[in-house]
């Protein structure tokens, strides 16, 4: 039982390039989330999904897009990478709403934009 798996673990991009971060969970969770973590800022929610085929904006959605075509996968896309998007990205999932369920996190993707 792998839990939440993120790929890739590390990536370096040039400004203007695009890429997709993949998150996969094997716990049959309905809810999935993408966060970014920057020094001294804690975790900030980018986008989230409450079920297959649904997505919603979080606190810092600009410059990112997401898709949830399959229940187990949640993809985060950067269309035109900018240095301000250099960060560590975490995916999480939960069985139900966070009002009564904890979130399970992957180990992160460390992304550098040059």
């Amino acid at each position, binding site marked *: 039982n792998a839990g939440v798996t993120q790929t890739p673990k590390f990536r370096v991009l040039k400004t203007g390039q695009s890429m997709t971060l993949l998150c996969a969970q094997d716990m049959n969770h309905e809810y999935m989330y993408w966060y970014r973590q920057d020094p001294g800022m*804690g*975790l900030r*929610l980018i986008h989230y999904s409450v079920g297959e085929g649904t997505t919603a904006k979080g606190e810092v959605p600009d410059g990112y897009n997401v898709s949830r075509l399959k229940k187990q996968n949640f993809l985060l896309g950067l269309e035109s990478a900018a240095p301000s998007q250099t960060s560590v990205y975490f995916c*999480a999932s939960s069985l139900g709403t966070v009002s*009564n369920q*904890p*979130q399970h996190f992957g180990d*992160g993707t460390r992304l550098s934009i040059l």
Partner: protein
Amino acid sequence: SQQGEEDPQALSIQEGENATMNCSYKTSINNLQWYRQNSGRGLVHLILIRSNEREKHSGRLRVTLDTSKKSSSLLITASRAADTASYFCATGMIQGAQKLVFGQGTRLTINP
């Protein structure tokens, strides 16, 4: 904007001592959760305490919640070197129940 603020930002103690971390928040919550993050890893859930609960225990962890003061504390008793990590509080809001809002974390170092 960050909902939770944690205090202290960093804490260094000797192995065997108790460690206390505090979290304050601004708006009404449904629940408050504590997570641990080891260096280079993702967050791991520790305890969830609901707004109608005052105290919760899990092994060496004790969490209290005071909704009148909008604050929570995490106590780790008899600390071990393996407890060295960053600890985050996260609030589940009454409105926007799908989301957690994280604090900036407390960096705990346990010295052998």
